[in-house]
């Protein structure tokens, strides 16, 4: 069966909530039912049929041909299958994902992968602020799964992250990994000011020394690290990085001692 393909007719006239369009949400629906789903968030009330031409029938594999920064909530809560967006997306892409694979071939807006619990989200372009982070009022951010940004991420990437792996390959904004509860954040290409600000536990792995650190981080030496070896091999075998990141004995800073202080920032010696 061919992938269920949504081809964008024209630039959307309003912000769209694409959260109903997930493999599990569309399973068993016929074409007419899918076309009638309301996506528009203003009084225009656009439906799927207004915005997209539909082809194919395999709801376990969704493709969006064409994207827009008005595409909000792409693949929200998806649990299985694959979703591919050939274009940009708006806010909260892959929010609360639990399984399956979401690929965004363009850029993503703020809160991409917010509260993700499982699956793999890959953004080929760049991501906005609050990557994987909680919405206002939520206690924890990303809670599992793998989130890869091939481009750049904005500020507060991995804010309040609790579990899982986030990798940002072309640098990120300020306060990456702020208030982290646990989990692993990998940043190559340089992090902004004060990564790990108020982190409790978790690991932030960098490809170079951070340009600034909160003064409540303390230097913890550079003994040989089996964890670094495991991590390096994992990142290469998962096709996240092309070459090892940390090496045999990375330097380690422990913190943030203004919070619990069990976190770490590692970078090659």
């Amino acid at each position, binding site marked *: 069966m061919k992938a269920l393909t949504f081809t964008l007719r024209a630039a959307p006239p309003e912000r769209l909530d694409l959260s109903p369009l997930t493999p599990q949400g569309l399973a068993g629906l016929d074409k007419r039912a899918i076309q009638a789903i309301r996506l528009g968030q203003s009084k225009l009330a656009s439906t799927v049929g207004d915005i997209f031409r539909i082809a194919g029938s395999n709801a376990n594999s969704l493709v969006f041909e064409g994207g827009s920064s008005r595409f909000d909530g792409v693949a929200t809560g998806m649990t299985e299958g694959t979703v591919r967006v050939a274009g940009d997306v708006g806010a909260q892409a892959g929010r609360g994902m639990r399984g399956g694979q979401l690929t965004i071939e363009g850029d993503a807006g703020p809160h991409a992968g917010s509260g993700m619990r499982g699956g793999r989200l890959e953004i080929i372009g760049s991501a906005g602020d609050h990557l994987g982070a909680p919405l206002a009022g939520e206690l924890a951010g990303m809670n599992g799964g793998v989130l890869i940004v091939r481009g750049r991420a904005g500020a507060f990437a991995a804010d309040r992250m609790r*579990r899982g*792996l986030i990798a940002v390959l072309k640098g990120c904004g300020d306060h990456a990994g702020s208030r982290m509860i*646990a989990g*692993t954040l990998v940043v190559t290409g340089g992090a902004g000011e004060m990564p790990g600000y108020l982190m409790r*536990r978790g*690991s932030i792995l960098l490809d170079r020394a951070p340009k600034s650190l909160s003064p409540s981080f303390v230097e913890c030496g550079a*003994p*040989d*690290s*089996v*964890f670094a*070896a*495991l*991590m390096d*091999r*994992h990142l290469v*075998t*998962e096709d996240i990085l092309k070459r090892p990141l940390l090496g045999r004995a990375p330097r380690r800073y422990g913190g943030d001692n203004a919070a619990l202080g*069990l976190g*770490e920032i590692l970078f090659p010696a």
Partner: protein
Amino acid sequence: MPRLKVNGVAIDDTFAEAFGMRATAIVITAPNRKWARQAAVTMTGFATSVIGCGCEAAIDVDLAPSETPDGRPGCRVMIFAVSTDELQKQLQNRVGQCVLTSPGSACFAGLEGPNELKLGAALRYFGDGWQISKKLGGRHFWRVPVMDGEFVCEATVGMTKGAVGGGNLLLLAGSNAKALAAAEAAVAAINEVRGAIMPFPGGIVRSGSKVGGKYKGMTASTNDAFAPTLRGVTKSELEPDVNAVLEIVIDGETSDAVASAMRAGIKAVTQLGSAKGALRISAGNYGGKLGKFHYHLKDLLP
């Protein structure tokens, strides 16, 4: 008993009788091969027989850096016991006292399976609150801070209920030196078989046992039928020209591994020949009623 001869070595028409066991395997790595083997040898010390040691354990194979999770030299160690509880206890104590303590070591699961034993999940408490949990690609590791950095240990390891313990070969020779030469040849060959270990010293037993004894409380006593000095006074299995007998005991991850190991051992002993090594190969059994697994020597000829 009708005898078959290969290269002058007589092969008894008998069988080895072996038992179902629980087994697990771990991969120990270190900065170099010397220290990987040191940790492995230490944790498999005093693990020759479940009768007195609680478990049987030995190094299965050496692993190249490309075969280990952290890219360092390593060894695969196998541990066998009669119950899941005993296996868990032995694994935890031995890894905790002998691998955690060894410089630069790390410890990973060497077996997957539906049944699991705790590994790092039990040893993490040594970290006293400073231990770090990491999940990577479906595997769970514990990082325990120690004086040379961190001890990394996989949280759990698989266990098989299909393991077999007690495969054996008895090598009968005209002199002690020839018996030892035959046994060493067999050990060298069996070391190449994956999934099979020989838990006794250097893989060789000189004090084969029978079940029970004349003294109360003895679960095993000397195998008088194969003791050359008792040839005249007991119902002996030995002919006049035999002066020394050595046994190879084999535990395997599967019944096939035991059979492969015995086949490799028989091949090595017969290749050495009767002039330099054993005059005869036999095997130990209890009449076939105690053990579920029977390995007939005639089926394992080279």
